[in-house]
């Protein structure tokens, strides 16, 4: 048990939490402005695919060398923004139901990257392998610093700038914000686009940071875990960061502990398993989701969403 908590586990936690933190902090801006963001998954997939495809093309076709991953990262971010723009127009301009259109974006982005890579790379839905030295070269230490900085910036923007004040007021009480001369839809567009940019980077980190190619559905639910972390973090930047780290930690543990932690005798009897078996990985996987349900039900402090979340704003005539 003790040799589990090593330096390696800490770095592994940071690595696994990185895409979650990026997506969750992005989602924070969207949700605080009043737009639900269950499309984080789709935006991450868009970012992951575009980043991998562009990095590969920049390296092997255009021979841009060490600049390739940065171009890929930029492209991944742009893809996230593009998808967010579609989502924003549908939700804000056309006042579509946000959950429904978010689901549509997720389904679309489940198919589109695989559809395109099938055609572009004649594969069954993945991009070619990118060479090791053409990936984002940051060490976990640098990434940890950057994420800390990003969280601080998010906190500052949200609580100490006029933009942040407007964003929060639009999410809480759009009528009052509108009466005070704030353009509700403009603020909401910015919120959703920021979410797209950060989720796109989060996805890009998955494909050209953590691994070295895009594979079909490679986010495998991370967008939803990010959403869970956002709720678990009660829609606040620092708490959201901590929630992401917690969820990253559970994932890191579930990877490392395969064969390391034994099932306690009591649970073994309960589950009709032999004492001394490994803890089934499925139980660790459930932790983030269970925690979210418990927090949302108000068992651990109260978790109150922005008041106008999910309601299209109808300007009074």
């Amino acid at each position, binding site marked *: 048990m003790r040799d589990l908590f090593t330096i390696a586990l800490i770095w592994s936690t940071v690595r696994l939490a990185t895409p979650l933190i990026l997506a969750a902090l992005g989602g924070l801006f969207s949700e605080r402005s009043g737009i639900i963001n269950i499309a984080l998954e789709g935006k991450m997939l868009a970012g992951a695919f575009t980043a991998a495809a562009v990095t590969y093309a920049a390296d092997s076709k255009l021979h841009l060398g060490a600049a390739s991953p940065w171009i890929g990262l930029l492209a991944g971010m742009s893809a996230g923004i593009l998808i967010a723009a579609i989502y924003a127009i549908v939700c804000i301009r056309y006042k579509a139901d946000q959950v429904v259109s978010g689901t549509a974006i997720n*389904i679309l982005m489940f*198919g589109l990257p695989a559809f395109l890579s099938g055609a572009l790379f004649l594969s069954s839905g993945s991009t070619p392998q990118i060479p090791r030295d053409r990936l984002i070269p940051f060490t976990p230490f640098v990434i940890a610093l950057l994420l800390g900085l990003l969280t601080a910036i998010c906190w500052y923007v949200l609580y100490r700038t006029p933009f942040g004040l407007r964003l929060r007021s639009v999410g809480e009480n759009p009528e009052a914000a509108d009466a005070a001369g704030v353009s509700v839809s403009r603020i909401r567009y910015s919120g959703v686009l920021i979410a797209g940019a950060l989720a796109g980077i989060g996805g890009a980190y998955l494909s050209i940071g953590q691994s070295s190619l895009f594979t079909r559905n490679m986010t495998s639910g991370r967008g939803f875990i990010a959403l869970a972390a956002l709720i678990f973090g009660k829609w606040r930047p620092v708490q959201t960061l901590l929630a992401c780290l917690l969820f990253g930690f559970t994932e890191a543990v579930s990877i490392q502990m395969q064969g390391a932690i034994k099932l306690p005798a009591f649970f073994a009897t309960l589950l009709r398993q032999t004492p001394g078996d490994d803890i*089934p990985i499925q139980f660790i996987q459930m932790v983030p989701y269970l925690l979210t349900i418990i927090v949302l039900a108000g068992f651990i402090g109260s978790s109150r969403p922005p008041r106008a979340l999910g309601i299209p704003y109808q300007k009074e005539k």
Partner: protein
Amino acid sequence: MKLLRELLFPLIAVIAAFIIGGILILIIGDDPIVAYKLLLGSALSWPDGIGYTLFYATPLIFTGLAVLVAFRCGLLNIGAEGQLYVAAFATAWVGITFAHMSGWVLLPLCFVAAIIAGGAWGAIPGVLKARFGSHEVINTIMLNFIAVALVSYFTQYHYKTPGDPIMETTEISGGAHIARIGRILPGFPERIPLNLAFILALVCCVLVYLFLWRTKWGYELRATGSNPTAAEYGGISIRKQIIIAMTISGSLAGMVGINEVLGYRYRYYDGFSASYGFTGIAVALLGRNHPVGVLLSAILFGMLIRGGIFVDAFTNNVTKDLVDVLQGIVILFVAAEALFRGPFSRFGLLKRSKV
């Protein structure tokens, strides 16, 4: 006139999706006309095309109805995916555990298992919303992941044939099988897995219609969905309606297990659902939350799944992922109906409170 209007917008959405899909096919270097011809041709041939189209449509009718019932109560059930997994496993569990019973007892028991398990899993977010006010969308998403992990645990640790590399349970008792259409309809080959669950799905369409529009309970459920405040004044308990709607919704989603386990694979196969729960949202929306619409759009999506396999195999570049792309675009267009309808849209049904 009303019927025409109801048909018009879904039709525009589908056509728009096919056009955008066609442009994408052009971009990746195939001929959209050829691809679509292939898609429709393979989905509508007799008997294989139609048989498989209806087979793929069956789970979508169930999940479409599930989303519909919740929707009519003002709830969005994104959890059909989790509900159908739990139900499919439960029905397989009964089919394995009580294998010694005669089919006359076992088969109804398996049906009940699917319906109760799905209903119970659907009731959880209902109770959470009614009791704590926590939003069903988030809870159903979370419960999807929990369901998948839970049944995968039971399959892997308790009900797998030892040494089997595939994540699937042992086979259910022969008494719990339901007949394939081929055994009943002369001239229809038995290799096509279309089974009696399809008939059950049709019956469910009728039952859901009768329940929602011809009973007092259905009226109360719809009243809660269209105007909760007025419903409450009228003496309807909103909390009770939420729990009832989510339970019925979960039961309907659970019946996917009957098609999958009792009619097709005769065992629980881990990860069997090709996002049936999520496609159900598209089916319900495109079907304008009416049982007849659900039936029609489930068949349309069934055609897409069947045809997608052929397009994948017989074109150079197009893969079956085209189906997901078309589906996503269809929902997006249906959701953003105002795009076609102009500024005078009515979103009464979709008005939501909070997350």
